[in-house]
């Protein structure tokens, strides 16, 4: 790794659209860690998170044509691609079933889970910022952002009026902005 190139976003996007290999390399080197982090915050299982990360990069590469810079930064778009894929995985049948299986008292598997494959995700990425919120706000952000529930689903889950869910999430989000800034 000799020369460090720094692309402007616009430049990078046109290189990506031109399917230049060096643009992929740049994208990966600069963003894989951040995207890996957001995926892990949704899917704590490292192996599954790796699968999602791979899928995310393939999707970003293929769907770069649909990225519209007037609607946000490239990173914002990629972050949402990664989060959406992770949530798809989280809500898939296969994943739900593997969760259920873990509840069986299989000592070998248990050790495996408790040992190396799962990270404590409370201390990474956005979750670290979310941890600083009041618990009533934290729960709602967890459901909405990290679990992908709609406001309507949350209202039902938390037995709360839809209006309250919306207001609390908005309040939590503005607080999150000041934490991030």
């Amino acid at each position, binding site marked *: 790794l000799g020369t460090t190139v720094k692309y402007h976003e616009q430049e990078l996007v046109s290189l990506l659209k*031109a399917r230049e290999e060096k643009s992929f390399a740049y994208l990966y080197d600069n963003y894989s860690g951040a995207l890996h982090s957001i995926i892990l915050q949704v899917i704590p299982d490292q192996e599954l998170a790796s699968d999602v990360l791979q899928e995310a990069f*393939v999707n970003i590469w*293929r769907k770069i044509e649909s990225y519209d810079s007037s609607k946000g930064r490239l*990173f*914002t778009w990629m972050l949402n691609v990664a989060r959406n894929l992770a949530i798809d995985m989280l809500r898939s049948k296969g994943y739900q079933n593997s969760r259920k299986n873990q509840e069986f008292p299989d000592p070998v598997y248990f050790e495996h889970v408790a040992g190396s494959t799962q*990270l404590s995700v409370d201390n990474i990425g956005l979750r670290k910022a979310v941890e600083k919120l009041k618990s009533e706000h934290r729960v709602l952000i967890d459901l909405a952002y990290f679990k992908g529930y709609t406001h309507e689903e949350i209202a039902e889950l938390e037995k709360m009026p839809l209006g309250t869910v919306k207001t609390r999430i*908005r309040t939590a989000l503005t607080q999150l902005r000041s934490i991030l800034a």
Partner: protein
Amino acid sequence: VNIEQYISSGIIESYVLGLASPEERLEFEQRCSQYPELLAAREAFELSLEQFSQAQAVPAPAGMKARIWEEISRADSHPGKEKAGPGIPAPVRPIRRDWWRYLAAASIILLVTSTLLNIYFYRQYQGSLARYESLFANTQETARQNRTLQTSLENSQSSIRMMNDSNMAVIALAGRPLSPSSRSTIYWDRRTKDVYLLAGSLPRPVSGKQYQLWAIVDGKPVDAGTFDLGPDLTLVRMKNIPRAEAFAITLEKAGGSNSPTLEAMYVMGRI
């Protein structure tokens, strides 16, 4: 619109983090093009999100970069000339998606139509089946009646053939005082000496009783067999009687008697 209030409402974070509803997104995008301060606030939040995320990055597993590139190049080389040059938009996707959409719509229409037709034909089938079953039952009944008639006709025809036979001696038995209007007829084959009886107009016996034919031979009654009154007028074959002067019918207990009850004589005729 109070744009300051809108900016601090949480909509920016909601939009950027992908939590806004489609309507909210649309409204937000419109306002971004209208209010530069909103756009600036959005970009500021995006930047702080990106910086924070980069600071919190978790390195991806080793070897993943090469794996992903391999998958990308493999998939890219397959669609053929699709390595579209820079600036050339790929119109292939939307058209294909539309094509699928039409195909899906057509499939659904076909499915619905087919389901409705299935219901319609099933009803038709149920109706036809019921009609078929009733027709089949009718046919069975008709066939049964036909067989009965056939048998009856065959009996009558064979009776008529025998009555018409020139070798048959015909002996009319006339009603006795007990039943003056009764008539019976004996057909006696001269060669075989077989006796056939046409019961004629005997009254229907009470239960437990049966008619018995007697041949009078040398002044003495000889049993020629018992008989029942059938539904049809047919000849009933009785016992073989080689020789007789007269025939008579009495009403006896069921199964017949050894000697006739003379008071219960209904008809009689001499040869």
